[in-house]
């Protein structure tokens, strides 16, 4: 399985990005890491280029909310990405938000898996579970 990952927007938080990279590799994924400070379009471009199965976006500084709203609109311009698994994790709101509100909102933006302030390994377990269920429904 191929995963494109990166930190969205002007966010420069590199630590989580490196750890996601390491952990995905440890779980056997092929990783294309766009690093920090990545625009939304770059994720989709990279997914098309690499034929990725998953886009894993991380965001630490709270600006994901702004970018999230544009996901459906931008993704719809790419014809081959209908089946791609969309995942986002990190701090998904500015300040303290309510997890019960956040998850449906981001699902509504077009994400399949939403991890707000969730431990990295738990998040990746969720991803593997999601993939398994999709393959053997």
């Amino acid at each position: 399985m191929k995963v494109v990952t990166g930190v969205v927007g002007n966010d420069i938080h590199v630590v989580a990005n490196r750890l996601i990279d390491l952990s995905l590799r440890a779980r056997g994924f092929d990783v294309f890491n766009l690093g920090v400070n990545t625009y939304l379009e770059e994720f989709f471009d990279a997914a098309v280029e690499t034929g990725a199965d998953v886009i894993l976006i991380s965001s630490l500084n709270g600006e994901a909310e702004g970018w999230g709203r544009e996901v459906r609109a931008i993704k719809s311009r790419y014809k081959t990405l209908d089946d791609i698994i969309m995942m986002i994790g990190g701090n998904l709101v500015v300040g303290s938000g309510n997890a019960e509100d956040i998850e449906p909102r981001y699902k509504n933006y077009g994400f399949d898996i939403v991890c707000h302030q969730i431990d990295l390994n738990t998040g990746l377990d969720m991803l593997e579970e999601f993939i398994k269920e999709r393959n053997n429904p």
Partner: protein
Amino acid sequence: MSLLQEEREIILSNEFVESFDFAEVTEFVKNASKDLFISHHFKNKPKGKMLVQPRGGFPTYKKQFELSEFFVKSNVDVLPLTIDSNTRLNDYATAQKMLRLSEENDVDMLNGYPLINHGYRTTRKMFTHFNKPVSLRHGTPDARLLIETAIASGIFEIEGGPITYLLPYSKNFPLDKAFLYWKYVERVCANYSGLNEPINRESFGPLTATLVPPAITIVVQLLEMLLSLEEGVKSFSVSFAQQGSMMQDAVTSEVLMKMARHYAEEIDCGDAAINLVYHQWMGAFPTNKDYAEQLINMSTVIAKLVGADKIITKTREEAAGIPTKEANAKTVANTQYTLGILNGLPKIVDAEEEEILTLEVQAIMEAVFNDPADTLWRKVFNCIKNGIIDVPFSPHIINHNNMITIRDAQKNIRIIDRGNVPIPDRCFKYERAQCDLTKDTTSIVNDIVHDIGIMQ
């Protein structure tokens, strides 16, 4: 100086720059009080005395003045001037707008002092008034105009460098350009150094402050020092931040200073003064402010144990954001008190660790010198590009990020994957032998998360 002069005119042709009177600036530097030069203090301070420097910068002249005044009252040795992030990105228009808003509304719209917009004529008034050495803290890849303005303002210590100000902060600022911009900075500093006491340059050793192994820290310090000395700089401070293990800090200091003197001699710059700066813990701070103070005090103790010439302080409010001037001043007073009562420093030894680290540094330095490029900066550039120098957790696209480090049981940072860095086999074996490597990668990732947050 003619090529320099040409470049200079290009830099100054900017609508936000006041007109420079270089003849007047030269006269000013020539006659400036020796007290303004940190190089003078380094040279004349009593043996073992450590200069104390806090952090801090405010947008308006008034608030920066008040901050400096407050610091002077709390017995500071070196005043900081931290530059705002718009100025760091050479966006003087935004800085101007935000400065005006800050002045009009008494709200700080910038995270530092916009030096270009204030200009050197104004800023110089502040610092000649206090008559204390000032250290410029910025993070600017293209700092040419900033440094011209700083020196004209009476700021005679310039922090930064092409590697240490780029790799931790930027994703894709072109590194080759940074080397050339910093070459200009070094030359300007060197040229002014002949007029009075030397301008001091300081490298930024903490880098990403995240599990950087001492070998990488030292190599980067040595290379920025050499790039500076070869342009004629006569006073240079290497630096590093508390690493989490006292032993490793002591060994790092020992190897760094020995090698710095060695390589300075090698390029016939043995006459340059080399100073050691220690940063109090630069990683994540505890949110409990009492605990933050314990950490800060411990950093001070270690700084003195490793023989630092200057310490750069943190505050109890570190985890909460930009500290108040009161918190900053309190740290200064506490640090001075601690340094005063800290006596009878023991000799520390770890011959094996020192040997291992020395071998690592020598091997990387040799690989850099063996690069076929014609100038040192090109050799360094190539070695970052090909991963011979690899800074853990750098966000920059040029950085390889293939070196993996974790902490051993004593919290020493150890290299468990060397990537393309030419760590000698013997050293690599030693580093790995200190760690428990039977764990799976998931556990190691958990360990890294834990290792980053050890002070919390």
